[in-house]
């Protein structure tokens, strides 16, 4: 092969042009929706939840979630009188107190509670749309990510189904789809919120216990609510930057 310096110098700009075309991208975007104007979150008002399971069924209808898998689910807590009086007792059995049930994710509601001792409450759970999510950090192929408007999503064309993210989520919000064999999770109904609709779970909630909130919208009632209520996130010690806010969350919720 006879490649001299002249030929090499001619090849260099050609390589540079090829590199430029690699870097150029043409992404699709929803019209009339500007990602930089939003920072999505969810408010869950525990005292309003009646455990009807509408949200779980609505999510399944909207997103074709397979049976036995959940993007959102509802748990029922029962904290006994003894536990309420001794909340800091480390000898308490965490398997029985508080007692947590979630039959089929609470999809068809809950058995009638006849025990009037202690206190009961429902905790709807879902992806916390973390701002510093552990699940996106462990993906080896860049198939899961936080969008510029703050929603954690899975690129199911890119996902290999290795399930690292399923293990990384401290809230247990991900699963491997049994047919697609890729990671699946709550998208905060991204196909709805970008069209101006609320999420399916919020739409179907009869008591307004779930409310979609946009933290970048200064007129959103979430700002007033966060100032005037005792609002917490799940597992704050994990520093995940969770954006699902729970009003009146009991200390026993893990």
């Amino acid at each position: 092969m006879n490649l001299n310096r002249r030929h090499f110098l001619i090849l260099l700009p050609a390589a540079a042009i090829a590199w430029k075309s690699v870097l150029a991208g043409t992404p699709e975007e929803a019209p009339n929706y500007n990602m930089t104007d939003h920072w999505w979150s969810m408010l869950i008002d525990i005292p309003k939840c009646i455990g009807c399971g509408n949200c779980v069924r609505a999510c399944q209808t909207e997103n074709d979630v397979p049976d036995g898998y959940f993007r959102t689910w509802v748990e029922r807590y029962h904290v006994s009188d003894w536990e309420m009086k001794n909340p800091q007792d480390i000898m308490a059995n965490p398997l029985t107190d508080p007692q947590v049930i979630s039959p089929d994710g609470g999809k068809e509601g809950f058995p009638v509670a006849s025990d009037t001792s202690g206190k009961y409450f429902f905790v709807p759970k879902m992806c916390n749309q973390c701002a510093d999510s552990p699940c996106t950090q462990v993906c080896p192929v860049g198939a899961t990510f936080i969008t510029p408007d703050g929603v954690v999503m899975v690129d199911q064309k890119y996902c290999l189904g290795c399930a690292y993210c399923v293990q990384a989520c401290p809230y247990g919000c991900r699963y491997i789809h049994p047919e697609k064999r890729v990671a699946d999770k709550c998208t905060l109904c991204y196909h709805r919120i970008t069209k101006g609709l609320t999420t399916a779970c919020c739409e179907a909630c009869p008591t307004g216990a779930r409310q979609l909130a946009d933290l970048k919208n200064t007129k959103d009632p979430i700002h007033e609510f966060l100032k005037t209520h005792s609002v917490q996130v799940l597992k704050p010690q994990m520093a995940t930057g969770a954006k699902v806010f729970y009003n009146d969350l009991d200390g026993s919720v893990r």
Partner: protein
Amino acid sequence: MSVFKDAGHLFRFAGLFVLAFLVFLVVRHYVVPKSFGQYGHYRAAAIGEIASHPAKFAGHETCEACHSDVADKKSKGKHAHVNCEACHWALVQKLPTPEGPKPNLYERLLALIVPPAPPDPPLLRHAEDPTSVKPVLPDTTVLCARCHTASSAKPKGFPQVVPADHSNGMPCDSCHQPHNPGMNDSATDAPARQAGGTK
């Protein structure tokens, strides 16, 4: 040019490197999606793909555009904050999926590793075609009980009854009008009252 004397083997080697680099660039061009890395270490086009899924729940604004009479009635009662689709559910019907566009090289390569997910089936909506997609009248004995069955686990202020004691198996809508369930003066259109109930 004495520097380059007897250096031909080095240039041949450098040429091989350049060739390999060009092959790498060409392969990379086809394998790495165009939008990868635009917002971060992911394919930015995936955002648009997820956003383009069709919504199934239409939202109460869509219902109220036609059913303003029901919306008016509902706004006066205790169910004012309950959205239409919380009871009537999403009125959509899935149609058979048409053939999609031919996959490109990247998609065909990827399909060897991960089988592609089937595309979203087109939807027929009640809001667009009210005659084809017809709502089913909900069975109130099941529907109402889902929320209003008494349980000590529910919030204390929430209206709840033991269905067997409360109605003795009668459907709830024989007394209550679901869009405005109160039994006071506002519930004048409850069927039982129309049939000569006392006021």
